[in-house]
């Protein structure tokens, strides 16, 4: 039996879960989040295109492609029956701002079943990813705050880029005389020219792993702004949201605006079942992406409150492995009190292998972090 939901986006997510239980589908959270972004971006205007978009995103093989329509019809038909039997028509949500219209269940339902005229295209896209999530997006940093965050991250990146590599760079004008090269070039009979070597600046990559669980939702908008700034100031950056699974969010941070990113993250949080498993997600990252993305010039930034329901031994092992592979592990924990010994279970397991544990959750705390780093 399909559970009735009150929002189209939520229905999409539960449709993703429903598909996952069917053979031969293997819909992962990553794909589902991409589909959500695509639907926001393309402003889908009718049910046929909505179905086709989901088909393009959620199918990976011929078998999946050929059985998709059957499952789609089955799911949404059962949903329609659930709606008809249990729900009285009424507004979806209370929206006091008046910026976005709210739609009744029947409006969305009729849109889904081809009565397209009852909803306006743009408003529907907004309704799908807009203000109806449980998260309060009013605390999204304002333009000034965002600029300040951006400025601080820029400063931090400059501080990082000012570290010198052990390797030296050739230079013809100044630096330390490179005797070895000088001898080799003289031996070859080349024209005599002094060769110098200069220290080379290190370029760091950043891997951001952030916790998209409910317990972190009140800090989400600040962290979204922070990650968007990181994207703007670091040459190479990879971001992943985690909770019970790992989801790449690069595209989301690159393509969506800040409020839309916060909303999309909220949708991603809805994809997960309850119980954060930090260790399992870090293991997944190490297995799937670390060989491509991690080196001695990689800084891993973990953003999490450390509340973990997984096995602490797995987390400990994963963080230890990660520490060996990267330059530094920095952990931003919004609930950590500096010097406190009472750490959540997850933090306690990982504590030994973290290079910087900081309580960064606001502009003030970010400022002091950048100052002391």
């Amino acid at each position, binding site marked *: 039996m399909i559970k009735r939901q009150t929002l189209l986006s939520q229905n999409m997510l539960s449709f993703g879960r429903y598909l996952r239980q069917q053979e031969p589908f293997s819909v992962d959270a990553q794909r589902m989040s991409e589909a959500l972004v695509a639907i926001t971006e*393309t402003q889908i205007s*009718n049910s046929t*295109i909505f179905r086709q978009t989901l088909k*393009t995103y959620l199918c990976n093989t*011929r078998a999946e492609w*050929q059985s998709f329509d059957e499952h789609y019809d089955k799911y949404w038909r059962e949903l329609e029956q659930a709606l008809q039997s249990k729900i009285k028509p009424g507004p979806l949500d209370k929206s006091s701002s008046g910026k976005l219209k709210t739609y009744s269940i029947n409006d969305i339902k009729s849109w889904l079943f081809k009565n397209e005229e009852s909803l306006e295209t743009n408003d529907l896209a907004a309704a799908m990813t807009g203000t109806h999530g449980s998260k309060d997006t009013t605390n999204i940093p304002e333009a000034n705050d965002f600029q300040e965050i951006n400025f601080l991250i820029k400063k931090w990146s400059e501080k990082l880029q000012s570290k010198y590599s052990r390797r030296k760079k050739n230079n013809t004008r100044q630096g330390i005389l490179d005797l070895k090269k000088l001898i080799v070039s003289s031996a070859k009979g*080349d024209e005599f020219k002094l060769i110098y070597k200069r220290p080379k600046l290190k370029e760091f990559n950043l891997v951001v792993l952030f916790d998209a669980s409910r317990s972190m939702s009140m800090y989400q908008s600040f962290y979204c702004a922070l990650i968007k700034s990181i994207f703007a100031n670091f040459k190479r950056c990879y971001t992943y949201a985690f909770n019970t699974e790992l989801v790449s969010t690069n595209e989301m941070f690159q393509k969506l605006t800040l409020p839309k990113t916060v909303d999309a993250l909220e949708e991603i949080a809805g994809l997960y079942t309850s119980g954060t498993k930090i260790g399992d997600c870090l293991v997944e990252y190490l297995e799937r992406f670390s060989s491509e993305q991690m080196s001695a010039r990689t800084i891993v930034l973990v953003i999490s409150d450390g509340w973990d329901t997984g096995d602490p031994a797995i987390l400990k092992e994963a963080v230890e492995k990660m520490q060996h592979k990267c330059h530094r592990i920095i952990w931003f924990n919004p609930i950590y009190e500096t010097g406190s010994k009472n750490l959540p279970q997850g933090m306690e397991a990982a504590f030994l292998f973290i290079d910087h544990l900081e309580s960064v959750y606001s502009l003030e705390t970010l400022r002091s972090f950048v100052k002391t780093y």
Partner: protein
Amino acid sequence: MQFELESFHEVLADQHYISESQVATSIYLALKMEKPLLVEGPAGVGKTQIAKTLADLLNTQLIRLQCYEGIDASQAIYEWNYPQQLIHIKSQEIRADKEDWKVLKQNLYADEFLMKRPLLKAIMAENKSVLLIDEVDRADEEFESFLLEILSDWQISIPEIGTISAVTKPMVVITSNGVRYLSDALRRRCLYLYIDYPSFEKEYQILMDKVPEIDDHLGQQICQFMQILRNQKLHKIPGVAESLDWAQALAGLHVSALDKEIVSATLGFIIKDWKDQREVQLSLSELLETTGVKSKIG
């Protein structure tokens, strides 16, 4: 160039690519979200044509990489032109104003000696290009894993020059006939589209668009015959490409309607396997009867 999703189907039709609306939606999403599009389906259903149509539509160059067993990086990315490099060194030996070693070395790895293969061409293209990686299932698995790196980072490292990052992300269309199963990693990086044989109506539309000189009635007969033929147990089921070839041949012969004699004489255009040909020849009267064509011979 901006397109509307609702009208994209017509935009493709304007470029003489007649497709189901699902195909148009998938292509639009790949364009809009800048994702590679993996197109699977039997041979001759118009997978490769997608890339050609897109190149025409975007008014850009089509860069094609035809995959085959044993293809490797030097055939797909770049190669140094060794003979020319040697000639360059030799010419330096003769010249009075010899270049010193450092300059010579630098000149040896100059752009003029670099033979750019399709992937590098697509990465270095200044304007958005369309990169067609055709029949990727024919290439080895190693090559497929190698493609993954390019598809995720859009950059290529050449030891002598350094890393070259894409100026603009090319629109990538990857086609596969399903000769072997492609890895999940590659599938994850792409949007998926499966194209099957077209319906009677679609095939008729395609036929009339591509071979306008053909008679309406003959067009319908061809499409109906092809639909029936595809339901037979054949080794190689004919695709749309075969229908078009056949229609063109019949138009060239000034045929106005199908009959057993003409079908039998031109069967080679649609059936490419001798066993299949023998089977079809044996049951031709029956097939034509189902199509509604009466034999002149009897």
